[in-house]
């Protein structure tokens, strides 16, 4: 019962964030696309945690941990990638 319900919630969370793919596609700005990816990242982490509980695979929590660590990494890379030559910082006054 419990595993089924947790897996069901995993599916629900994934479904709701996957809709964010539309924003990745539509934009219009790079910032929009990044935010959508961020939402998918957080939702993906939640999905993995729920799956780990549903499948009773505690090791899978490590996957969520790595995803969370790399979410920050990807965020920085996104922002860098949107700056010319890929080396800037949006906080610098141009």
């Amino acid at each position, binding site marked *: *019962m*419990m595993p089924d*319900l*947790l897996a069901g*919630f995993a599916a*629900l*969370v994934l479904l*709701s*964030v996957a*809709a*964010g793919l*539309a*924003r990745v596609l539509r934009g219009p*700005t*790079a*910032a*929009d696309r*990044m*935010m*959508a990816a*961020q*939402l998918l*990242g*957080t*939702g993906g*982490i*939640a999905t993995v*945690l*729920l799956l780990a*509980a549903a499948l009773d695979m*505690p090791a899978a*929590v*490590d996957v*969520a*941990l790595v995803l*969370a*660590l790399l*979410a*920050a990494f*990807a*965020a*920085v890379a*996104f*922002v860098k990638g*949107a700056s010319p030559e890929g080396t800037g910082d*949006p*906080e610098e006054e*141009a």
Partner: protein
Amino acid sequence: MSAWDLFTLAAVAAGAFFFLAGTVGLLRFPDVFTRLHALTKADNLGLGLIVLGLLPRAEGVFGALKLVAVWLLALLAAATVAQLVARLARREGDAGA
């Protein structure tokens, strides 16, 4: 089904609701700043609630700490993105105008 299970289900359900709300905001709000605003609140709360709900099922103290670490790291990433993306959006807006 134990009381802890009910707690888990309630927290997870609330978390899932916030994810849903975040997506609706992302898709429906008119401009990049309001979208950002909606999003950062929603997904962090959502993940936080789900982590909270799963805590009783964690394998030991270490497992629980790991769950909390996941949430903190995600929070950190979200905060960074919010800050940097806002700057970026402002600059993109300037360039577009």
